[in-house]
């Protein structure tokens, strides 16, 4: 086959290597593991939002035939606490229930039917505590503290940045607009729900395969929580069936390890059903955001005040970091000299909020970009021109007070959008709407920081091995959750070493076989790992050429060239197959490795050490401008997105098709966030427990999409790339809201933009047509 011989080039639209196995159903996901002699593990969950746990009655469950173990917190000898920044989440509840999904007892059984029956037989002795469901109520003086030992009380995280004259800057504004936005709780709804399986040998060594974005950090957390040495735990991380941040951190890992330890030499599997995934997994933070934005008469932004509240649920997960990233992005990609920005993540007894693609930015971008349109209307100017006028360029300070360096493609994106017929011909398109239909066009401009910020090391260690059979094994130390970074690594190595896919194999993350690397998250996966990998590949190339030269008695390795499957001596035309070369080399000689640590911002833009610990500020940013064309049905209030355009500055592209797929997918998820996704919670209980009630966009709900990249090189990036995984989800909600405003003259502040809300506002606005 052609693909067997062809070597990849950077910038080519190549099929992903993993597509072949996935399209045949042959790629083993974690959930596909059904080893012989399997046991099933499951969890008894609290079912109440806030209570003191007085006792757990497990006898009836234990007595059931086929039950192998029923474990409570008493079985845990470690800290029984998990978390990334603040370790505050119990593996199994020991003293206090803080949300309905809290796990209280772990059951292991021979089959799923017995498991379900046993869980039903467990009863809990609970003393109710007053629950807290609203962030503002959580900060009331007399509010019950969810974590009495936390110095910040119920405020998990809070930070404020004041730049320029702060609020006094509003005195200089000729025009001011103000609004409060409500953003919903979004579920990741990856199709492969949280799962894994584990086996402990007689000596207590645990081998676990799990659907996770963070195998190395998981190992550390599991070890600490259960009181084990890290080297007793091996975690393998195959491709995830979607993750989007929802598998950034512990899901089933500690429970599985505990179950395996108590049932040695039997594999134990845990697989959360969809309903359990909703109850127990994390969600995007619901947020209330108050914005005030001022400008001079000519449309130059002058002052911005933001007060943002993020409901983080009962545990940190990554809630503080989310609120910090929201703070950094609250002012959008604009020059605003006077700012007063504040965000908080607050503990409540609602389901746990945590990492989700975008990581706090979709919330603030939705608000800020709505504000920009409000301001444009107030100034009676073109919303695109307002953005062009104020767009950050290199050397500017952003609204959070940090100097921009690195590639800045926002203006290029805005210019491309201005030329696009969907923008330039929008008035004619709007006028052509049919009966009962209103049309509108909306834009949104966003930016997204990449990596972990200045304190947490953003590192990766890559490895490439020439196998004895002459193939190159490329380590992918960072999980591929679907975005395609594994195949992208192969494309980079294949180009540098001039080897086709058939000459290369992948080694997926495995704490026993690959080097520790950061997470698959924060738009840093391919940037950081690629930067580790490229020097390794170059080193391998030099090694192969030098060793090949030696074996062919050639003086100068410069006379050698790598060709598919061989090194070639150009002068003589002789080939030395890599398989032959490999046999002459020891393992150390066949292996290269390289470590990389991403650069960080050196500017001291805040004295708040806690804020810096939570990732502020970032150094490298991607940019994007999106456009949505929508139709509103006046009879039903339904919004239909007709066309969608994204123009992105994410540096150079390794594989444009992979890039486009990622943007389209992010837009799809973002349109779900804009239009329909809203995990309902009432008194701490989920009111949309399944995929019949928590709805995602189907193919019919999403528009045709056009994806454009302005491919300006980022000098710090491998082959000039920068982060692309998240930015696509930041803009859609604002673009749609702005299009609705354009269509109906209505500014909606509560998301998602349901037909119900829109029709009610439309009726109120038009006096109900026939209403009265």
């Amino acid at each position, binding site marked *: 086959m052609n693909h067997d011989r062809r070597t990849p080039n950077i910038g080519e639209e190549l099929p992903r290597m993993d597509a072949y196995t996935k399209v045949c159903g042959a790629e083993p*996901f974690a959930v596909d593991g059904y080893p012989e002699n399997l046991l099933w593990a499951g969890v008894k969950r609290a079912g109440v939002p806030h209570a003191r746990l007085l006792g757990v009655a497990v006898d009836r469950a234990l007595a059931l035939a086929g039950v192998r173990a029923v474990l409570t917190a008493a079985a845990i000898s470690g800290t029984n606490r998990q978390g990334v920044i603040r370790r505050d989440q119990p593996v199994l509840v020991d003293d206090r229930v803080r949300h309905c999904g809290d796990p209280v007892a772990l059951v292991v059984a021979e089959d799923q039917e017995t498991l379900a029956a046993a869980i039903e037989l467990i009863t809990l002795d609970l003393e109710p505590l007053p629950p807290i469901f609203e962030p503002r109520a959580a900060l009331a003086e007399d509010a019950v503290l969810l974590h009495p030992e936390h110095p910040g009380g119920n405020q998990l995280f809070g930070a404020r940045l004041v730049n320029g004259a702060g609020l006094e800057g509003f005195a200089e504004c000729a025009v001011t607009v103000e609004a409060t936005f409500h953003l919903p709780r979004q579920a990741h709804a990856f199709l492969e729900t949280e799962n894994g399986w584990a086996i402990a040998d007689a000596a207590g060594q645990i081998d676990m395969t799990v659907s996770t974005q963070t195998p190395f950090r998981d190992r550390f957390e599991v070890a600490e929580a259960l009181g084990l040495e890290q080297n007793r735990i091996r975690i393998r991380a195959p491709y995830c*069936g979607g993750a989007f941040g929802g598998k950034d951190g512990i899901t089933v890992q500690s429970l599985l390890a505990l179950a395996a330890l108590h049932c040695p030499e039997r594999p134990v599997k845990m697989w959360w059903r969809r309903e359990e995934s909703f109850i127990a997994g994390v969600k995007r933070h619901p947020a209330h955001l108050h914005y005030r934005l001022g400008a001079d008469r000519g449309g130059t932004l002058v002052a911005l005040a933001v007060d943002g509240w993020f409901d983080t649920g009962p545990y940190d997960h990554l809630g503080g970091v989310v609120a910090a990233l929201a703070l950094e992005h609250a002012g959008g990609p604009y020059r605003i000299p006077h700012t007063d920005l504040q965000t908080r993540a607050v503990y409540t007894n609602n389901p746990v909020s945590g990492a989700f693609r975008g990581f706090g930015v979709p919330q603030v971008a939705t608000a800020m970009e709505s504000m920009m349109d409000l301001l444009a209307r107030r100034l009676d100017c073109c919303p695109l021109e307002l953005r062009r006028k104020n767009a950050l360029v290199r050397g500017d300070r952003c609204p959070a007070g940090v100097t921009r360096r690195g590639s800045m493609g926002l203006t290029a994106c805005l210019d491309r959008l201005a030329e696009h017929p969907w923008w330039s011909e929008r008035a004619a398109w709007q006028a052509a709407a049919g009966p009962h239909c209103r049309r509108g066009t909306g834009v949104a401009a966003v930016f997204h920081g990449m990596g972990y910020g200045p304190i947490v090391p953003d590192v990766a260690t890559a490895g490439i091995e020439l196998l004895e059979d002459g193939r190159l094994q490329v380590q992918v130390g960072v999980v591929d959750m679907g*975005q395609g970074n594994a195949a992208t690594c192969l494309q980079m190595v294949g180009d540098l070493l001039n080897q086709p896919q058939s000459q290369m194999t992948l080694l997926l993350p495995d704490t026993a076989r690959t080097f520790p690397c950061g997470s698959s998250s924060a738009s840093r996966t391919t940037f950081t790992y690629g930067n580790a990998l490229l020097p390794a590949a170059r080193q391998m190339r030099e090694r192969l050429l030098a060793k090949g030269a030696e074996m062919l008695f050639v003086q100068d390795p410069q006379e050698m060239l790598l060709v598919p499957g061989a090194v070639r001596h150009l002068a003589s035309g002789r080939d030395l197959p890599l398989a032959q070369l490999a046999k002459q080399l020891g393992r150390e000689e066949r292996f290269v490795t390289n470590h990389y640590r991403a650069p960080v911002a050196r500017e001291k833009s805040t004295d708040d050490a806690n804020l810096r610990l939570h990732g502020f500020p970032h150094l490298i940013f991607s940019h994007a401008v999106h456009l949505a064309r929508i139709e509103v049905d006046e009879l039903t209030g339904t919004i239909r997105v007709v066309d969608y355009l994204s123009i992105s500055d994410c540096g150079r592209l390794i594989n444009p098709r992979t890039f486009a797929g990622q943007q389209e*997918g992010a837009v799809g998820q973002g349109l779900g966030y804009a239009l*329909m996704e809203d995990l309902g919670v009432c008194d701490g209980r989920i009111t949309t427990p399944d*995929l*019949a009630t928590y709805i995602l966009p189907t193919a019919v709900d999403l528009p045709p999409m056009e994806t454009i990249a302005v491919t300006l090189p980022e000098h710090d990036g491998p082959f000039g790339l920068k982060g692309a995984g998240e930015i696509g989800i930041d803009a859609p909600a604002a673009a749609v809201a702005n299009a609705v405003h354009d269509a109906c003259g209505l500014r909606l502040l509560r998301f998602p933009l*349901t037909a119900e809300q829109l029709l009610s506002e439309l009726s109120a606005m038009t006096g109900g047509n026939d209403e009265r």
Partner: protein
Amino acid sequence: MKLPCIINEEHYRLEVPADRRVVDLLREDLGLTGTKEGCGTGECGACTVLVDGRSRLSCLTVAAQIEGRRITTIEGLADGETLHPVQQAFVDHGAVQCGFCTPGMVMTAVDLLTDHPEPDRTEITHAISGNLCRCTGYQKIIDAIDRARPSIPGPATRPTLAAADKSPVVRPMVRAATRSSRQIVLPDSCDQLWPLLAASPGARLFCGGTDLFVWLRAGRCQARLLVGLERIDELRGIGSDGDHLRIGAATTHAELLADPTIKEHLPVLHQAVAQLGSPLIRRTGTIGGNLVTASPAGDTLPPLAVLEATVELRSATANRRLSLEEFLLGPGRTDLREGEIVAAIRIPLPPPGSLHSFEKVGRRAALACSIASLAGLLDLDDDGTIRTIRLAWGSVAETVLRLPQIEAALIGQPLDDTHITAVLPAVRKLVRPISDVRAGADYRRLVAANLLRRLPTRFCSDHRLAAGRPQRP
């Protein structure tokens, strides 16, 4: 039960509980883990396989239902090393990201191309609307199917049971559920059915099972014996009976949709069925099942109401015929008696030239539970005034709702925005919606009335301007 079937062209005789879900049978018992499970309730399509060449949700199918059938899973699609053209197109056009929806998506596409070798993008989009993808935004999946254009072999025909029996691989299940707590029987004829029902009072009947198997999973059905009607041939099919159409209760929605008579003579029903559930649900769900479930949101109910369909009930000893209003008593409640089944729906053919309209509002454009719906059947006089009109609303009352007062008020009036608008306040008063997780009662009331305003724009091009947009403030 001993289950003869063919899986990926291999003959099996499986020892398996009758209520074993096919997705578990494939993944756990046979190691065919290419078939994925994403929800267990028929909402995501990841578990789609082919049964006798047609797509089917394996999470809502139990072992008893595949007896004698030919199953194709994703593992059985490629011809040795050569990918099926749909698989190859998915690889070539970037349709695979995380890959978890991919097997189900590919199977659905293969099913589509069997009937429509050259679908347009709209047809493709609707065909995959029961398969959720969380990674791609669908665009590249649609591209791939659009370009697949294979010379697809015809659908695998249903093997005879005898053929399946020929040289089976007898495979005792390694990990099949140990306790088979529930019996599932699928009689082939009514003659087999009646003694079964007589011997087992309390048996739960189903026909397709797209609702029942969701309830089973949620623990909302405790019956020990389930009796499926889907294999009874005399309950299937669409026939003409003079000036009536007779639809067998076990006819699937997909069969209704494909039937040219329904499309020509009962567009209101055709339009409703086209929006019911997803293509995958329509392959399995039946019109009889939709009736007996008696959900206020049942999509076939408003069209059947305006068509003034009657329900044929049959038991071992007697037949009776009820109007739809007599049959439907409330949410989930019908006049069906113990030992009785719905055999067919009889529909009088509306006069030629009647105007048919069905519109449904859901929280999304496909695979949606209706928030409000309206079926309309009208005849206009030559001058454009309404001669007859029947209207039935879904999801705005305990069951499908006809409003004779509104119909009476409109008869003799021109079909235009002014006259329709005049009756809207009355509609809002007369509907009796509830608030639930999908929408509030106020919205349902508003929309129930507004849907009427679509009728002039649908049927009278002259009235398009009159129904145009109000001025902006």
